[in-house]
């Protein structure tokens, strides 16, 4: 396991042309992830968390205009041809999405689908690819792998399908795994199995993981670093311990307090008024100010706060960072 940076994005911006105007889905985002580490991107719907990752890996929709600097294993992806980018992505990046059926072809056996990537990217023969598929199914904990290799996706349960997708994502031993809400559609006991599985495989293979989630509890258990997104920008980032223990942005603090805590026994939950903004109608200045409980002065309304350090390895985008020990 090395300490090298696997994927880094700098000043990433994604604008999507729609019938109702230009939607600025992602604006000036910087993050990176190292081998063996997990970066969690956290946010609500429309925050840009998924779009930033799709754009970084060249999977943004056609209507999207993507600018910024993206480096995968040190290679500037902008210098590659479309085919070169595709090859690089296929060989070095694995994907797991929320709905396993987005990744699985219903008319092919799971074995064929897992094997296919290793035929294309590793040059394995059909026979070797099948053996590899069985090995991968065993690795992700699917029982009787030698038989399940010939099963079609519909013959597997939701949890088993997601395991098969993980097998498919990891078959080429990628340097990077992108997991976009991979457990959101699963039951909590199955979710626990999948989180454990990915963490275990990461330890063994030294994969870098970008985990996109709205679930702060899941993120708390698996992330090394966290970036909290709101309105297309990172509003807070740092080590998972620093961000969760001492949230400096009013949004992060409110999100952490909004979940009911059965041990705390409160009647009224802390709420954030209103709803997350649409990328089509982002407020000027700080995107969070219309919902913010701190909202000091009209500066928040006019000016975009810069991302500034509050402690070593912990940055926040607000004019009013919360002080340590302040009540959430």
């Amino acid at each position: 396991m090395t300490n090298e940076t696997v994927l880094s994005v700098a000043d990433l911006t994604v604008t999507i042309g729609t019938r109702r105007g230009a939607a600025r889905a992602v604006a000036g985002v910087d993050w990176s992830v190292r081998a063996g580490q997990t970066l969690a991107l956290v946010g609500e719907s429309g925050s840009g968390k998924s779009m930033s990752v799709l754009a970084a890996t060249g999977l943004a929709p056609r209507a999207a205009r993507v600018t910024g600097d993206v480096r995968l294993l040190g290679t500037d992806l902008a210098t590659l041809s479309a085919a070169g980018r595709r090859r690089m992505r296929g060989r070095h990046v694995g994907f797991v999405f929320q709905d396993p059926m987005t990744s699985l072809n219903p008319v092919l056996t799971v074995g064929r689908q897992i094997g296919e990537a290793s035929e294309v990217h590793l040059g394995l023969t059909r026979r070797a690819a099948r053996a590899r598929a069985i090995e991968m199914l065993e690795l992700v904990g699917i029982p009787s792998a030698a038989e399940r290799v010939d099963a079609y996706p519909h013959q597997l349960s939701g949890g088993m399908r997601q395991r098969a997708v993980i097998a498919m994502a990891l078959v080429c031993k990628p340097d990077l795994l992108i997991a976009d809400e991979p457990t959101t559609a699963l039951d909590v006991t199955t979710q626990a199995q999948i989180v454990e599985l990915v963490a275990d495989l990461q330890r063994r293979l030294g994969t870098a993981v970008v985990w996109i989630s709205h679930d702060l509890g899941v993120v708390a258990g698996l992330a090394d670093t966290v970036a909290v997104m709101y309105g297309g920008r990172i509003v807070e980032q740092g080590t998972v311990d620093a961000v969760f223990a001492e949230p400096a942005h009013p949004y992060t603090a409110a999100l952490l307090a909004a979940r009911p805590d059965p041990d705390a026994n409160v009647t009224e939950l802390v709420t954030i008024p209103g709803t997350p903004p649409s990328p089509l109608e982002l407020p000027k200045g700080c995107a969070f100010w219309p919902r913010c409980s701190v909202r000091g002065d009209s500066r928040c309304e006019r000016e975009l706060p810069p991302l500034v350090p509050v402690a070593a390895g912990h940055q926040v985008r607000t004019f009013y960072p919360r002080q340590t020990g302040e009540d959430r």
Partner: protein
Amino acid sequence: MTGESGATDVVAGLTDLAVWFPTPAGVVRAVDGVSLTVRRGETVGLVGESGSGKSTTGLALLRLVEPTAGTVQVAGQDVTRWSRRRLRRLRRRVAMVFQDPQASLDPRHTVGASIAEPLAVHRLAASGAARRDRVAELLDLVGLRRDLAERHPHELSGGQRQRVGIARALAGEPDLIVLDEPIASLDLSVQAQIMNLLRGLQRELGLTYLFIAHDLAAVEHMSDRVAVMYLGRIVESGTPAQIWREPAHPYTAALLSAVPVADPPVQRSRQRIILAGEVPSPIDPPTGCRFRTRCPQARPDCAQTDPVLVEIGSGHEAACLFAGEAVRAMRAQPVNASSP
């Protein structure tokens, strides 16, 4: 969960309810022997994973699914065999709020028309003007601006749509509101708003809820009593504190240990009871205890005897031959099987 207090404050009850669905693959026993009592002014939480039968149980209270066996009582009357005509009266007494307000509201109707519909069906407003007044009043109650009555569902946010769903449920002044995953499809910051709204309305109007969800922390927060379901049965019931702090059924304990906690050091070092495998098919549930195929503490007796709910503390019941003891043993020696 059978109460000892007088029958007068019981709003709704199920006795040995079974709901089976015939399918080409066999008979699915979605609900297979559930008894439940809901008293006036309280919230009963029903928690379980997919396939546990919690939603079907809720639908049975409105007779939106046909009971295969057992009885359904609402407001002191046995409604199990009520005809379609009489059911209209039942559906004024029991209202429902669904998970996805996008799907449960007619996209062609304005918000006002959707809320007014139950008023018309149940003849609750004498005139058009009276109906409009009542719609405005209901919008106020759920915290929506009155002018939203003219809008269509697609013009609203998810949280606003769910507020409309709640206003519609309130329209007939029901005795019971069945809330089926009312916050599951909302953003985190909006979930808290809806939970606060539901609790506020309950205090203000004395409402009675059956709160159905897979989110254990939300159920604990919302409920006065909680029932945990697994494969068509209630396996444990009690107060939120009993369920959260002293779970007696191994399934409840496993479910609790799988709920992620937003505290990194705690979450990383927690002793988790990770269940092996998946929920068995409700077409052919295991003999004896239904949970035994996944239970880390299963013993030979568990295959022989189908455990019934037994009181193990004041108002705390569990359906496990080794209630309490099994959980203590699991916690002393957590099983960490990440593969089934």
